[in-house]
C-alpha cells in the first residue's frame, strides 16, 4: 500500500527527499548548458544557410552551395 502513499501501521516512517549537493551541481550544469546553447545559437545563426529561419543553426549547407545571411 505504500505504493499508494498510505502509511501502514508498523511500517518504517517514510523519509521525504531533499535537495542536496547533486541538485546544486545539476543546477550549475543546466546554467552552463543554457549559456552554451545561447552562444551556439547566436554563432550558428551567423553561418546558417540563408532563408532557413529560426532553425537555421540546426540546418546544414547543401554541398557546394554556401549562402549565408550576411
Amino acid at each position, binding site marked *: 500500500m505504500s505504493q499508494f502513499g498510505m502509511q501502514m501501521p508498523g511500517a518504517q516512517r517514510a523519509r521525504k527527499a531533499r535537495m542536496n549537493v547533486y*541538485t546544486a551541481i545539476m543546477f550549475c550544469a543546466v546554467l552552463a548548458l543554457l549559456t552554451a546553447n545561447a552562444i551556439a545559437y547566436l554563432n550558428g545563426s551567423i553561418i546558417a544557410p540563408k532563408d532557413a529561419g529560426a532553425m537555421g543553426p540546426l540546418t546544414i549547407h547543401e554541398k557546394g552551395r554556401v549562402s549565408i545571411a550576411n
Partner: protein
Amino acid sequence: MHIVTKFLVILAAILAITLSGMTIAYTSNASAVADALQTKENQLSASKSAVNELTARSGAEKESLIQKNSALENQISTLQAQIASYQTDNARLSTEVSDQKTASALHAAQVDEFTAIAQTYAEVNKAQSGEISDLRTRTLDMARREIELTDRINELEGRLQVAVETNRSLQELNVELRDQLDRGGNAISGATANSAEGTLRAPQNFTSSITAIRTDESGNVLIQIAAGTNDRLREDMKLMIVRGGWLANVILERVDENESVGRVNFLGREGVDIRVGDRVLPTL
C-alpha cells in the same frame, strides 16, 4: 531524489541534445564556409592577377592611346589650319564666283548683242558672196584674157629675140666683112676660104662654161672651158660666149680630153667683160 533535481537532470539532458545538434551543424557549416572562403580567396587571387595584367595592359594601351591622341590632336590642329585656309579660299572663291556670275550675265548680254551683229554680218556676207561670185567670174574672165595676152606677149618676145639675134649675127658678119674689106680684096677671099675650111662647126646641143680666163704676151684673151675631145670638140672649132646675150666668139686652139683652151675674138668691140661662168654655146 528531489523533484527539482529530477527536473534539472531532464532539462540538462534536453539542453545537451540541443547543444550537440547545434554543434554538429555549426562545425559542418563552418567547414563549408571555410571551403567557400578558400575558393573565393583563390578566385580573388586569380582575379587580382587578371586585374593586374589588365591594368598593365590597359596602362600600355593608355600610353598608346595617349600617343595616338597626341598625334590626332596634331592632326586636328593641322586640319583646323587647313579648314581655316579652305574657308579663306572658299570665301575668295565665292567672291570670284559672284564676280564670274556678274561677268557671265554681262557676257550673255554681249553674246546676244554679238549674235545680232553676227546675223547682220551674215546677211551682209550673203550679199557680198553674190558680189564676190560675180567678181570672181569677172576675174576669171580677166585672167583668161591675161593669159591669152601673156601668150601673145611671149610669142612676140620670142620673135623679137629671134630678130635681135639675127640682127646680132648680121652685125657680126658685117664686122667680119668690114675687117676683111680693110685687109684688101685678096685677103677677103683668103679669109673667106680660111673661115670656110679652118673653123669647124661645133656639135649641136653642146654647152659648157668658162672655167678660167687669162691673157697671153700679145694681149689676146684666152679662156678655158670644161669640155674636150670627149665632147667631140676639135681644134679650130668656133664657139660663142653668151651671158644674157652674145658677147664674143672663141676659136679653140688646144683641145684635151676634158678641157679646152680658145682665143677670144671680140670682133673689134671694146669694153666687153668676159667672166668665169659665162656660157659657151655652138650657136645662139
